[in-house]
């Protein structure tokens, strides 16, 4: 019986495998792929089964899997080990490769996303080409999901190993290509994260394009009054950085600009930036137009004569601005901007600006600028959750219910009230202020956000301190569920604020009612520690609203091919071990766009991203996975259908030996397989995912080991 089986195996091999051999040998165009070609007959595969402690061994019969693996065709060696990824585990692999003259390695363990690089290195160290390694995932896709199905997971592991061996027997030597890296980087978003990342890149000598969609850099942090727990003035610590960014010789500031298109890959991104029509020329732009000594100097003469009044977004709409405006006196760059959605083009500003400066151009249009960068950092930041959606708290219905960002502007000396906290309804100074924590955070109703916004506890403590300090006799009531004072000196800050007289009420606010006459507010909650409901009569309510990604984040992330998690925050490559990286090589994340962070964490994340983004640039070249498509020229009919299908413009038709054949630009090819799957003549060979390799895997699965 066994002999018969063997015979059929051989027979089918000669039928199926022979053409494969031919194909590969004919690959004159891709000599790398032909090197070290093994046929299935002389393949000697080693199978190494990992216990992963009890992660795998606790859910399946490892000895049974091992015994089975020995019976799989082409398997020359089988072993198991408690932790295959450990140094001794890797040594087992290396030794077996040498001792048994293995031609391929299969490790049955975790996900290739975790340890493929580890085992490739082990394979390489034993003298075998690293691409002769294949991984069988028996953890994430098996033991973890079938934790309580001993027999089922054992059988599935056998299948996985058989399939992996089938492919490993046909694997070829591959050699990664290196491509040069453009010595420039792009940072998208110029809040504190983007600024810090750009400053670090500048300090590392890397040309950096800092793209910001609003007219000024500074972001959310520039809207804040003070910062916890040190109580430094936010602007005082931020403006030096803003000025540094403005002066840094390697930073090219692109304010009032947005990323419009991204092409290319790590080392060679071609980014198109849309410079929105600003209507005002910088001195440099004026000079380029031949207006020597002209351009905007920030004098503000234009603003004085502009007849159009609009709400100032920087002041959360609590202060007016003109159609030609700067948001606040400390903007960088100090260049005015025309809001063309409200400008009536009366021309008064042009007259006021005068013939020397000639800074205003009412006919200016969006411009598109193309830049080439090696790496990019996204630092797109956050917005406030529209807390009026939680109707029970009455935001936008009751005048004296405000958000914490509005509170920041009201308490800030440069804000709309000069730093005097007032009730919006009557301008009176509040004497009792309620702070509603988790306003839209930790909310599973689908209206709010399921996550903790992380910095609301601490800034609300800071707000409590500020009103105690500024308004004698004013009592803050902080309605909280948990005070999450997790950072350095944060718990001490909590102690201090309680000592200063803030009253903490442990209960989430159920609803708020307004006294229509006085516009005072009744805050209803359960004092869970006293086990009694509360009706707190206060003058002002501050909602510590949840945060969410900026509205434009989704568009930007798609341009850079970055994923997002369920809640919309951008997805890091690994939540613990690669928090700044993304699954797109060469694109990194900084600050809150990856998830809520306070300022220290944001700056740390930005420095991490800058460091990560500078590594490929300093190395000067990056290795690309050699998974590109190759053309088998003998088979190529030169129809060119693949050329248009390629999403990365990596294919073209060239003339060779008097006829048209397809040619692959390997650096552009991502190995997606679109062309290989389509080619009607079977003339495209996908390295490492070749048709015969995949067919062998499918056969191994469907035929249950028979060939």
């Amino acid at each position, binding site marked *: 019986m066994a002999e018969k089986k063997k015979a059929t195996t051989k027979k089918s091999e000669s039928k199926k495998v022979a053409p494969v051999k031919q194909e590969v040998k004919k690959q004159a165009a891709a000599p790398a792929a032909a090197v070290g070609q093994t046929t299935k007959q002389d393949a000697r595969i080693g199978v190494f089964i990992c216990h992963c402690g009890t992660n795998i061994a606790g859910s399946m019969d490892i000895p049974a899997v091992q015994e089975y693996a020995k019976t799989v065709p082409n398997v020359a060696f089988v072993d198991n080990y408690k932790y295959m990824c450990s140094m001794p585990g890797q040594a087992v692999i290396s030794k077996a490769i040498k001792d048994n003259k293995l031609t391929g390695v299969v490790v049955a363990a975790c996900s290739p996303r975790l340890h493929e690089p580890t085992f490739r290195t082990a394979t390489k160290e034993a003298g075998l080409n690293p691409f002769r390694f294949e991984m069988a995932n028996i953890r994430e896709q098996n033991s973890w999901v079938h934790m309580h199905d001993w027999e089922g997971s054992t059988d599935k592991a056998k299948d996985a190993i058989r399939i992996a061996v089938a492919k490993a027997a046909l694997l070829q030597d591959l050699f990664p290509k290196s491509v040069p890296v453009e010595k420039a980087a792009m940072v998208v978003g110029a809040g504190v994260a983007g600024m810090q990342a750009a400053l670090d890149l500048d300090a590392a000598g890397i040309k950096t394009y800092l793209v910001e969609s609003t007219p000024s850099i500074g972001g959310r942090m520039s809207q804040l009054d003070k910062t916890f727990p040190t109580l430094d003035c936010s602007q005082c610590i931020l403006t030096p950085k803003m000025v540094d960014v403005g002066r840094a010789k390697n930073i090219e500031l692109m304010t009032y600009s947005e990323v419009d298109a991204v092409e290319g890959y790590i080392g060679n991104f071609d980014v198109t930036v849309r410079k929105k029509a600003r209507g005002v020329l910088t001195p440099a732009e004026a000079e380029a137009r031949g207006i020597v000594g002209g351009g905007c100097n920030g004098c503000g003469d234009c603003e004085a004569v502009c007849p159009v009044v609009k709400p100032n977004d920087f002041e959360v709409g609590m202060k007016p601005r003109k159609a030609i405006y700067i948001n606040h006196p400390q903007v960088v760059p100090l260049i005015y901007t025309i809001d063309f959605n409200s400008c009536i083009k009366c021309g008064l500003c042009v007259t006021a600006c005068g013939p020397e400066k000639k800074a205003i151009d009412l006919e200016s249009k969006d411009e598109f600028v193309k830049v080439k960068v090696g790496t990019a950092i996204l630092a797109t930041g956050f917005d406030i959750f529209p807390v009026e959606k939680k109707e*029970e708290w009455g935001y936008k219905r009751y005048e004296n219910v405000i958000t914490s960002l509005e509170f920041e502007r009201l308490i800030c000396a440069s804000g709309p009230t000069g730093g005097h906290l007032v009730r919006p309804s009557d301008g009176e100074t509040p004497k009792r202020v309620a702070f509603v924590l*988790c306003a839209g955070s*930790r*909310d*599973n*109703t*689908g209206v*709010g956000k399921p996550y903790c916004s992380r910095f609301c506890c601490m800034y609300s403590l800071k707000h409590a301190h500020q009103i105690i300090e500024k308004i004698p006799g004013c009592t803050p009531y902080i309605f909280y*569920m948990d005070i999450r004072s997790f950072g350095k000196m944060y718990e001490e800050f909590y102690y201090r604020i309680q000592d200063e007289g803030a009253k903490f009420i*442990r*209960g*989430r*606010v*159920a*609803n708020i009612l307004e006294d229509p006459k006085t516009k005072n507010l009744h805050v*209803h*909650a*359960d*004092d*869970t520690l006293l*086990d009694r*409901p*509360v*009706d707190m009569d206060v003058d002002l309510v501050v909602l510590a609203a949840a945060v969410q990604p900026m509205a434009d984040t989704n568009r930007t992330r798609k341009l850079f091919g970055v994923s997002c998690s369920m809640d919309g925050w951008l997805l890091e490559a690994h939540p613990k071990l690669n928090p700044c990286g993304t699954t797109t090589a060469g694109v990194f994340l900084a600050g809150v766009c990856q998830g809520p962070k306070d300022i220290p964490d944001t700056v740390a994340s930005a420095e991490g991203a800058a460091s990560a983004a500078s590594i490929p640039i300093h190395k000067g070249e990056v290795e690309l996975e050699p998974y590109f498509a190759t053309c088998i020229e003998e088979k190529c009919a030169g129809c060119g259908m693949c050329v248009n299908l390629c999403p990365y413009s990596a294919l073209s038709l060239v003339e060779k030996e008097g006829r048209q054949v397809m040619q692959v630009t390997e650096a552009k090819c991502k190995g997606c397989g679109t062309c290989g799957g389509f080619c009607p003549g079977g003339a495209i060979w996908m390295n490492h995912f070749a048709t015969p390799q995949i067919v062998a895997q499918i056969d191994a699965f469907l035929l249950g080991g028979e060939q």
Partner: protein
Amino acid sequence: MVRTKGYPEALEKKLHDQRYYREDSNPDFTKNVKAISRTIAHMCYQCGTCTGSCPSAPRSTYRIRKFMRRAVLGLENEALTDPDLWLCTTCYSCTDRCPRDIAPTDVIMAMRNLAFKRDIIPVNFLKTVQSIYKTGHGVPNNDVNRAAREKLGLTRDPPTTHMYPEYIPGIQKIIDHYKLKANADRIVKEREG
């Protein structure tokens, strides 16, 4: 677990051990409450939004949050024997606002179901059952109401079983199917003789 110290009765009552012990928790209680209420009763994080929203809480000892806590911990006896269980008006304000998307009202209803299985129920609830059985109404119409309705230009009786008493047998059939009336009569008799 011995919880008495052998003090004289009065002192024992005053100083009785109020702690709860592991064996006070019945995990099946949490499961049963979840199954009957069809809400994630074990997910409460005790923020108090429910009690803060509760119209009963300010004027009674009823604390919905406490019942949620008992559901989480499986404190069956404590939950079912607490007379406050019957103070919920089932207005659903807590369910509207619960940030964990739990329906505390339905948890209370589930606990009342489980309590009734142990004959724990206030007599007034049973009298409501008897009233519905008899008239189709928990609060039947009365002469004051009839006069008020007449004044408003309405019929003296509303278009319910009051106007169509021929539907009362149908209601009785449903109530009898669950032996609700029989149980109500039995318990009322036991309590009031």
